[in-house]
């Protein structure tokens, strides 16, 4: 069973954050299950970090529940 591909996750994030100025998913270990997810969006301006991460978690809830993501690190940025 292969893990999720980075472009699949990026597509989910772009759907969830159409306004994002940057969406990047990197495979940290090359194994297709440890990811670094970076999203830069004006929506994050003045939003508590917890809520920012909750939105990212929600966008990737499906592959997470399916077990294709074993671990993911999240880095969010606002537009400022």
């Amino acid at each position: 069973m292969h893990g999720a591909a980075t472009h699949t996750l990026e597509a989910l994030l772009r759907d969830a954050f159409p306004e994002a100025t940057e969406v990047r998913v990197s495979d940290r270990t090359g194994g297709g299950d440890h990811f670094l997810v970076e999203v830069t969006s004006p929506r994050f301006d003045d939003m508590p970090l917890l809520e920012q991460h909750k939105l990212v978690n929600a966008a990737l809830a499906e592959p997470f529940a399916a077990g294709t993501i074993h671990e993911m690190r999240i880095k969010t940025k606002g537009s400022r």
Partner: protein
Amino acid sequence: MSEVLQERIKSVIETSPVTLFMKGTPQFVMCGNSERALQALRSAGAPVTAVDILPDPEIRRELSAISGWPTIPQVFINGELIGGADIAEELAQTGELERKLASALGGDYADSADERVVSVLVPG
């Protein structure tokens, strides 16, 4: 059964100044992300109450049902979810974690920064 467990989890979250749900214990950490969260809390001098979620998969299920947060570790200050390892690390780096701890627990919170481990397992 799960109701009792949920009550025990809630009780720890609500009565501990800082709760860290983790894989393993501070003495024997079983996951890199739990280690990152623990180190972030230690760097801020937080009085950590650690709960190992590994002994029973029910703990993680009930915890995520309570918190709405999908992954482990999870950090709470005075009953409020702060986030996981990434957030704890980022807040520690910016100094925000110390400010949050001081405003929630008082400026002298680091004076009693003992670590303790508690179990939420229901006996029997």
